[in-house]
């Protein structure tokens, strides 16, 4: 029994998060039966989406290894939200067909700058992306010192429903679909190899810098998707709201089961990690737990998950 559990966990690093998410979902339904009422599903997913998307966006830097981390994902999501509301909506560029590509390009650009700082200029990733965190966060505040309300627009559907379907399926589905497509190319495998052992990847003829830079760029692109989803949810341009997502993004990755040292993991595990955090918060709120206690619970779950994960990674390696 024990061996089987361990084997399952090894083959599927996200098993812990998936199991926990199922348990939390059941607990939520027991505590609050209308949690799964048909008219509740779309708005609930709309609230979940930014959590999941920042989690996925943060995963790429971790996967690329070399101490990779991207702290600027949350403020970048805020920037996309602000640019969308204050500069695009209401202009000719405000239609989805024009706004989405522009915003994705903005996200990818900021991510690529992070990647270049890390891979080309050899900045420690924490420092490079912390700098970007302050630059982008400051820019956010400069652009909208006070929240600017957005009129009704197409993003509202993304946080609500598109016909019979929850709009969040689109926002969360897009990065996942992108990832699934990339898995069919050698890209994901190269990313994992670079994150696993960059000297090996280099000696095998891989372009380590190109892989790393593109990983950060892809993270930025997904952050832009998060910014669009967030706009639908908050219906305004707000330079403060991203603060709620900074640490959750990192916690989601760790909880999901991605190896924070690189080389193993993916977007699905982080999606599960983010879902766990969301469900946990929701459960404790509906049980009227204090906000402080919710934070303590986050931390506890994170400890357990990482402990579990590190044991696994440890168990696997045969010493040389």
């Amino acid at each position, binding site marked *: 029994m024990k061996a089987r559990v361990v084997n399952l966990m090894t083959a599927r690093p996200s098993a812990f998060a998936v199991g926990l998410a199922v348990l939390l979902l059941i607990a939520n339904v027991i505590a609050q039966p209308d949690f799964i009422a048909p008219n509740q599903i779309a708005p609930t997913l709309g609230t979940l989406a930014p959590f999941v998307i920042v989690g996925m966006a943060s995963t790429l830097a971790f996967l690329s290894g070399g101490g990779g981390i991207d702290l600027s994902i949350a403020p970048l999501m805020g920037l996309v939200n602000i640019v969308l509301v204050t500069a695009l909506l209401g202009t000719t560029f405000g239609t989805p067909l024009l706004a989405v590509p522009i915003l994705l390009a903005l996200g990818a650009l900021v991510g690529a700058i992070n990647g270049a700082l890390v891979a080309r200029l050899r900045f420690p990733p924490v420092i490079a992306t912390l700098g970007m965190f302050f630059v982008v966060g400051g820019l956010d505040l400069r652009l909208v010192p006070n929240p600017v309300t957005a009129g009704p627009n197409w993003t509202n559907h993304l946080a609500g429903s598109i016909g019979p379907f929850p709009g969040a399926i689109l926002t969360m589905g897009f990065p996942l679909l992108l990832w699934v497509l990339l898995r069919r190319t050698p*890209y994901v*495998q190269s990313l994992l190899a670079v994150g696993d*052992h960059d000297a090996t990847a280099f000696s095998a003829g891989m372009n380590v810098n190109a892989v790393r830079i593109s990983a950060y760029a892809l993270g930025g692109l997904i952050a832009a998707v998060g910014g669009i989803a967030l706009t639908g949810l908050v219906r305004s341009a707000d330079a403060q709201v991203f603060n709620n997502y900074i640490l959750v993004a990192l916690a989601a990755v760790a909880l999901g089961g991605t190896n924070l040292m690189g080389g193993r993991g993916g977007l699905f595990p982080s999606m599960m990690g983010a879902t766990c955090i969301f469900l946990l918060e929701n459960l404790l709120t509906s049980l009227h737990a204090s906000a402080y206690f919710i934070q303590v619970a986050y931390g506890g779950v994170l400890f357990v998950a990482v402990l579990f994960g590190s044991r696994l990674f440890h168990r*696997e390696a045969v010493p040389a």
Partner: protein
Amino acid sequence: MANEPVAPAPPTGGQVSRPAAVVLEVSGLAKSFGATQALRDCSMDLRRGEVHAIMGENGSGKSTLVKILSGVHRPDAGTITIDGEQVAHLSSPREAGAAGIVTVFQEILAAGQQSVLENIWLGSDGLLRRRVPKDERVTRAREVLGQLVALPRLDVAANRLPLSERQATCIARALVRNPQVLILDEATSALDVATRERLFGVIDRLRSEGASVLFISHRMDEVEEIADRITVLRSGNSVATLNRGEATPRDLVALMTGIEDAPAELRSEAAGRPDLGAPVLRVRAVRLHEAGAPMDVEIRAGELVGVAGLEGHGQDAFLRVLAGNRPAEGAVTCAAGDEHREVQSPADALAQGIAYVPRDRRTESVFESRSILENFQIATVDRDRRNGLVLRAPAERRFERYVQTLKIVAGHRTNPITSLSGGNQQKVVIARWMAMQPRVLLLNDPTRGVDAGTKRDIYRVLTDAAAEGTAIVMLSTELIELVELMDRVLVFREGQLFTELARSELSRTRLVESYFGRKAA
């Protein structure tokens, strides 16, 4: 090094039977790292369908040559000609691979969490486009790995494989590229016997198919078995290229050391110093790795013991075990009065008077942002405490003694240590540990990269310390140092103690012979 090699290099070109076409030729390659001239003047050519061995002792430039040919280093001077076309340099392993040159490095380079299959095909695809179809990946990987290991497993993570199979995976990665030139840099050292035999079969086949192999090995028997020609490097120069059977192992050793057999070189005072004290350090059944043979060594007070071998054969690990710096099976004990205390951590070692001068000055021993005096004082700072304050004057007085004996050339004592030359920094580090008045002084290649004058100063201080009863264990990569300085030398090979040479047996030739696995004739 005025003596000419015993075996003359064969004349190149102009022979009756025309040699096979040359696929790779290097000429006048040179490369330096800072003050160290790793490669001075290296020329050689590799013919189509030949196995060409490169031999040389530590620091002869073997690995620098390999790294230039595989696109890791860029040469300072010299030319590389591939298939008759001169290239400026190879700027990355990717570019080398595109030119048909693929290298298997001594260090096992595997992405541990990825499957064996992925490891074999690593780097052969573009960023987004697959160049090898999926079915072919599996069949080809199984076929190639199957030539090396009995039961190839493709879907396990590489870090779950035993060492030998992991290295076989790295070799398979090179083989699936159908290289025109395959470079094996000590690639056999991690292989078990059966895999090694199979690899030799593969090399034979490659040769008959017209590929060329550049073969670097520390094993004379392997080289004799497989190489068509041998190029010997010494101090960064290519000194000779010999055909198969043209030279005996003895000749090769002579070429590598640059001297004929030299009994005259043996020290005149044949016996060790008579006044060796009681054993201070005992090594009991220590094994440096799982498969290594356990070893027993005893170090006596006042003894100068050399630790030697080709780079990476366990001598560094041995020294760190003595310093409590590396866990190992077995026990290291230090005599403390009548009892023997075990050394299990650097703190244990220090408490029992074992001092360690590490190999890498910059990362392991010098505090670059601190002053000369602070760098000296750090090991003995306890003596300068008065009422909770640290005094500078006693440390300065203590330091002066070593400034004289070690001839340290330093400006004001509060200048940063980085204001000193590398050699003087090393002297300060040695002074730091000598000031502790250790019973055992361990030194890990202390004269690496320092000038001749500094070396002499260090030798004198060490022999004086030994005469006063300090046991000294010193890893050295310089033959002359081992021969001239040591009472005996422990030679390591393949992660275990290979042999011990007493002072009366010490010569450069004997040392290099034992590096390459030959016991006394």
